[in-house]
């Protein structure tokens, strides 16, 4: 996450920021779809939230398959003017978590004292979903989430899409358009940031590395809205292009929703940010292999600054790949992505004395195995590195950086038990060999990378 100097203190000394990162990167499966289609979760998910080839097809075709009695209205030419479930496809999600770090965080008020280590969040998040068809060709995944960190409800992952299928060269071509609030939330492969298995499910109650690319959750935190068009052919070739704009909620406070400006807490996209995605998938027998590229170019005014020029420019170019084996007894998947971000800090370099340019590289690789969709686990590696910039990545207790370096790396190991298709119990351990620039004393206050090693227990219910 990139922050200008003016807000660095506020942002990095607040556990709320860590909470927000976790909040925006969470992801869910929805029994709404099961209610609508009459199909079990396993049709669309290996184990939620990872999608199967059928789940990808269902999403790209606008969440259309519907096996409920309908309220319908047709025209004289037999076109459906209304096709509405008699019962709305609603569902709930409830998460309870326990988080402890290797070493307690310092007390936020009393120097030398520690905060309580071992935080229970009840709930960590609770969500209400509407997920399913709205009209013929039009469907939505809409999530409203209560987060105990903020103590309030807010809009979470949202993807509203319209899609049409047509025959082309003996196969199906799907053309669609999606409106959504986070680049890659509309994506159907679990190798892109919004849904990357198993990195999408992290605690909100422990420090997490402070540097991440815009496409890697950065824009979701700022509140954006995007529209993109896509094509999907032969269950194989996918192309998408879209534009994102700032759309933070609650801007303007009591004055109402005025034009976005320096009062916006997350910085403002000063213009349309183009987003692209190309992917190729090959399916054979029980296997699916995909690889692709995605990226965004975002111009952002630093927080607390007017939306006019100059602005900082972030260009993210990423590669990703996924392999899935979907057996009856054994399911295995592998996901990886590499993101390179080039920053041109025309605004921050003048305002805050940052470097005129920076770069940031992120790599993640993880494998997940499940036996009978019940017992499973994941093992993943993550690494972020980039150019050093003491003004962009300042020293700060717990959340600060050593030598202005954004480098972090480590491992994540997870054990899962899925007693029912819609309940997941997991224990996850994250080990850092480097955190915000160093292995030891990274924050200048004596905290080591391994002090942030995190044990996270989660009970995740979707119903």
């Amino acid at each position: 996450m990139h922050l200008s100097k003016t807000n660095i203190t506020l942002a990095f000394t607040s556990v709320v920021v860590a909470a927000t990162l976790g909040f925006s990167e969470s992801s869910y499966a929805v029994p709404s779809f099961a209610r609508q289609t009459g199909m079990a979760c396993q049709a669309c998910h290996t184990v939620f939230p990872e999608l199967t080839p059928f789940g990808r097809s269902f999403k790209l075709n606008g969440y259309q398959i519907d096996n409920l009695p309908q309220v319908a209205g047709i025209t004289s030419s037999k076109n459906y003017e209304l096709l509405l479930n008699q019962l709305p496809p609603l569902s709930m999600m409830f998460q309870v978590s326990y988080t402890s770090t290797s070493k307690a965080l310092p007390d936020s008020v009393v120097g030398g004292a520690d905060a309580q280590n071992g935080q229970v969040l009840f709930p960590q998040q609770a969500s209400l979903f509407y997920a399913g068809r709205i009209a013929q060709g039009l469907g939505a995944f809409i999530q409203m989430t209560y987060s105990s960190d903020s103590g309030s409800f807010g809009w979470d992952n949202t993807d509203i899409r319209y899609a049409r299928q047509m025959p082309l060269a003996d196969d199906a071509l799907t053309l669609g358009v999606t409106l959504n609030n986070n680049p890659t939330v509309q994506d159907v492969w679990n190798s892109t940031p919004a849904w990357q298995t198993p990195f999408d499910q992290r605690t909100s109650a422990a420090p997490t590395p402070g540097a991440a690319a815009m496409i890697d959750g950065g824009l979701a935190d700022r509140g954006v809205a995007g529209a993109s068009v896509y094509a999907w052919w032969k269950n194989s070739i996918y192309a998408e292009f879209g534009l994102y704009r700032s759309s933070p909620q609650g801007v303007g406070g009591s004055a109402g929703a005025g034009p976005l400006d320096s009062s916006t807490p997350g910085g403002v996209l000063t213009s349309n940010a183009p987003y692209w995605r190309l992917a190729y998938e090959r399916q054979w027998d029980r296997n699916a292999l995909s690889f692709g590229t995605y990226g965004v170019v975002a111009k952002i005014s630093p927080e607390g600054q007017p939306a006019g020029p100059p602005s900082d420019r972030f260009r993210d170019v990423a590669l990703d790949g996924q392999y899935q084996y979907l057996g009856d007894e054994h399911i295995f998947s592998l996901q990886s992505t590499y993101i390179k971000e080039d920053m041109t800090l025309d605004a921050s370099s003048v305002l805050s004395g940052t470097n005129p340019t920076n770069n940031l590289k992120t790599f993640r690789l993880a494998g997940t195995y499940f036996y009978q969709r019940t017992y499973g686990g994941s093992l993943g590696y993550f690494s972020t590195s980039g150019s050093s910039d003491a003004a962009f990545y300042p020293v700060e207790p717990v959340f600060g950086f050593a030598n202005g370096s954004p480098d972090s790396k480590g491992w994540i190991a997870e054990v899962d038990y899925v007693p029912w298709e819609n309940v997941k119990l997991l224990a996850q351990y994250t080990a850092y060999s480097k955190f915000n620039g160093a292995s030891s004393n990274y924050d200048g206050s004596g905290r080591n990378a391994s002090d942030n090693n995190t044990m996270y227990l989660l009970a995740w219910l979707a119903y």
Partner: protein
Amino acid sequence: MKTRFMILLPALALAGVSASAIAQDSDAGTLAREVCASCHGPGGRSISSTFPRLAGQQAPYLEAQLKAFRGRTRGDPMAQAYMWGMASQMDDGTIEKLATYYAAQQPAHGRAADPKLAQRGKVIYESGIPGANVPACVTCHGKNAEGNSTFPRLAGQHAEYLVKQLSLFKSALRSGGNAPIMHNISEGMTFDQMTEVSAYLASK
């Protein structure tokens, strides 16, 4: 996109309770392409052995199975997970059209199998397993495993799918239709014999 006004007015005028869109779809080809093909592949020639190939299947068999899904009398795990929902709102006309559509599709090519395995499977298919009270499959499923009415076509089917169905018949997890017949037959088969006959059929 039409305006909200245009959507709502005729809708209010014509609104009524109906079956799902799937049941109402009159074009079996469109339905097969836009819905069924997600799992069963274009023209019913599925890629994944999780899902049976339907191309060239006997129409009476397909009809019987779809009705068994709809009536929830076929209750194996995959039937419950996938097909109970998919068939729940289908009317008889849609079922008939879909069955006719898939029966008319060109079957997928068989997949070469280990010759020794396939040879042992061929013997089972044509002669049964006399000592185990397993009759010859050819009697009902036809000389070329093309099927006959409610006895399904087996030629070119995924081997893994066939093994799984035989196991389901044996354990009586698959019910409905001709399942009682197949339960009695498969009881005398070992897993290896199921693998052999399936390899032979998949190669045809």
